[in-house]
């Protein structure tokens, strides 16, 4: 798939933008703070209804828009070309009373819910800070899995939503338990909601990580000149196969890529419930839920070494690149469409060999949009086939 036309109103520093985007490679050149990244962010927003950067989506509305209207708004619009035809995605954001952000989503002119956006436009975003996915906090890896799955699996989005609501209510209840005696049924009703949603999340995450690991291994071999073998391992927070190793440190040699044989969703639910029961006293004492997929972990292992803890910066970067390229292949497998690739300044930090590998692999994408401050970084050969755009102060023009 590809984005044929992008239209922005009051998005970041773009007051107005009408941009035709061709097939293949598009290089967007510009100095810092001119609007290169915002262009990629807009496309990501149209795919997911969220910004990859800001937790508060309302920050995407252009600053000046606030002075022009008491209810500032932004509109994003993209015409998408898919295997099954054209589609128009529109997202309107308006800030209303008490700073609430109203999000209106339209697909082919019909108003839809956020969940209907799943699978309409698929993107893989490469960011300069991606290395944190391996070296940073576990929450970043869970966010990555959530974002990747949310683009292709509407049931996952629903389970995540149910889980988040039940978790918030359950945590609030556990805090109250420090002040008043709880009716056991009060906690039980939230467990009834938390457990099936949590199991659904864990099952889908396990499958996704196994698929990503399978696809990433050969890519990683190529990137590391065949010297390293990458494994990506899902460590669910509750595991019926190894209940005694809950919260135990990772052990090399256990293959977690396949669900343990003979274990179905009901076993997982039983294991989850048992784990909750075991830690109830501690949960009340700490006022929060201590078991569940909100505490899952994913680890990256190369040649028996945990890259998150012991890998060099270069090794971590290579693992992330393999993961992101695996995500491209994984999305293709799941959706039978080529995702749109968005690369923000990532080529700069790669050595020539890895850069060549990356460029080769993105060559097969229907559309890749790359930003850079310095066009000299690219091979002449590479640039020749690309459409060149220049961004300056929120205005885009051909170079």
């Amino acid at each position, binding site marked *: 798939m590809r984005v044929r036309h992008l239209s922005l109103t009051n998005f970041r520093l773009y007051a107005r933008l009408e941009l035709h985007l061709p097939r293949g490679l598009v290089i967007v050149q510009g100095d810092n703070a001119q609007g290169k990244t915002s262009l990629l962010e807009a496309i990501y927003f149209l795919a997911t209804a969220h910004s990859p950067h800001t937790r508060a989506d309302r920050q995407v509305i252009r600053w000046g828009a606030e002075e022009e209207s*008491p209810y500032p708004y932004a509109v994003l619009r993209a015409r998408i070309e898919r295997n099954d035809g054209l589609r128009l995605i529109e997202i309107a954001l308006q800030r209303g*009373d*008490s700073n609430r952000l109203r999000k209106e989503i339209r697909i082919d002119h019909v108003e839809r*819910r956020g*969940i209907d956006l799943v699978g309409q436009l698929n993107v893989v975003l490469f960011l300069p800070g991606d290395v944190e996915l391996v070296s940073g906090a576990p929450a970043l890896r869970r966010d990555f899995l959530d974002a990747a799955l949310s683009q292709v699996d*509407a049931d996952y989005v*629903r389970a995540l939503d*149910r889980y988040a*609501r*039940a978790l*918030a*209510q*359950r945590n*609030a*209840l556990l805090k*109250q338990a420090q002040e008043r005696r709880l*009716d056991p*049924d*009060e906690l*039980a*009703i*939230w467990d*009834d*909601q938390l457990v099936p949603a949590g199991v659904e999340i864990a099952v889908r995450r396990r499958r996704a990580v196994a698929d990503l690991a399978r696809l990433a291994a050969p890519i990683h071999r190529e990137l590391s000149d065949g010297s390293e073998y990458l494994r990506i391992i899902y460590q669910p927070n509750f595991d019926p196969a190894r209940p005694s190793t809950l919260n135990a440190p990772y052990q090399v040699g256990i293959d977690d890529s396949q669900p343990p044989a003979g274990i179905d969703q009901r076993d997982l639910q039983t294991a989850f419930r048992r784990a909750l029961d075991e830690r109830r006293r501690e949960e009340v004492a700490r006022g929060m839920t201590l078991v569940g997929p909100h505490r899952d972990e994913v680890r990256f292992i190369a040649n028996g070494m945990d890259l998150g803890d012991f890998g060099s910066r270069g090794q971590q970067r290579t693992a992330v690149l393999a993961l992101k390229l695996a995500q491209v292949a994984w999305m293709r497998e799941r959706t039978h469409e080529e995702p749109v690739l968005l690369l923000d300044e990532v080529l700069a930090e790669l050595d020539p060999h890895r850069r060549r590998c990356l460029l080769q692999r993105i060559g097969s994408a229907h559309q890749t949009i790359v930003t850079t401050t310095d066009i000299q970084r690219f091979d002449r050969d590479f640039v020749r086939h690309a459409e060149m755009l220049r961004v300056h102060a929120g205005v885009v023009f051909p170079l």
Partner: protein
Amino acid sequence: MSPNPTLPPSVTRLIDALTQLPGIGPKSASRLAFFLLRSPAETSLALAEALRDLKARTRLCSVCFNITEDDPCAICADPSRDHGLICVVEEPLDVAAIERSRVYRGVYHVLHGVISPINGIGPDDLRIEELVGRIRRAAEVGQPVREVILATNPTVEGEMTASFIQRKLAGLEVSVTRLARGLPAGGDLEYADEVTLSRALEGRQRL
């Protein structure tokens, strides 16, 4: 918090009072206040009277906790209604909605909310204990409740509240049912979302 210090106190007082209403910001409140200022005096007086009577004349029905002017309320006092059938709803407006359907001949029980720990609302803040007591007492006087219909909203909190009540009624000799969930009448199958459709399929009925 006066929107404008140059306005007379009687105007700002009304604006401040209106701002306390849900969904009314300072702007809407000013608009309403100035509308009343320009309208004939009768408009304001009628509104003032209606507001005063709202609190002075209404109370909660001691049986079903619906809002009423007479206790017990007209529905609870009606001998032609089926008192062996109780429909449990979140809010008084839900009673009005079900009454409009004109197919329900039982009585009601209004919870006045749903369980939501985030908002600090626990079972004790709702009329759940009263529901259990009501069913117990009915059995003692030989007019047992046969069925309780849980008609809370199909939101996460509504479902959880229904689930909690179900647990509390488990020991009693009463059958507990839940409102069916499925396709809206006059709706189009094509536009129904997956969750609604799958629930409609699960709850299908033999013809």
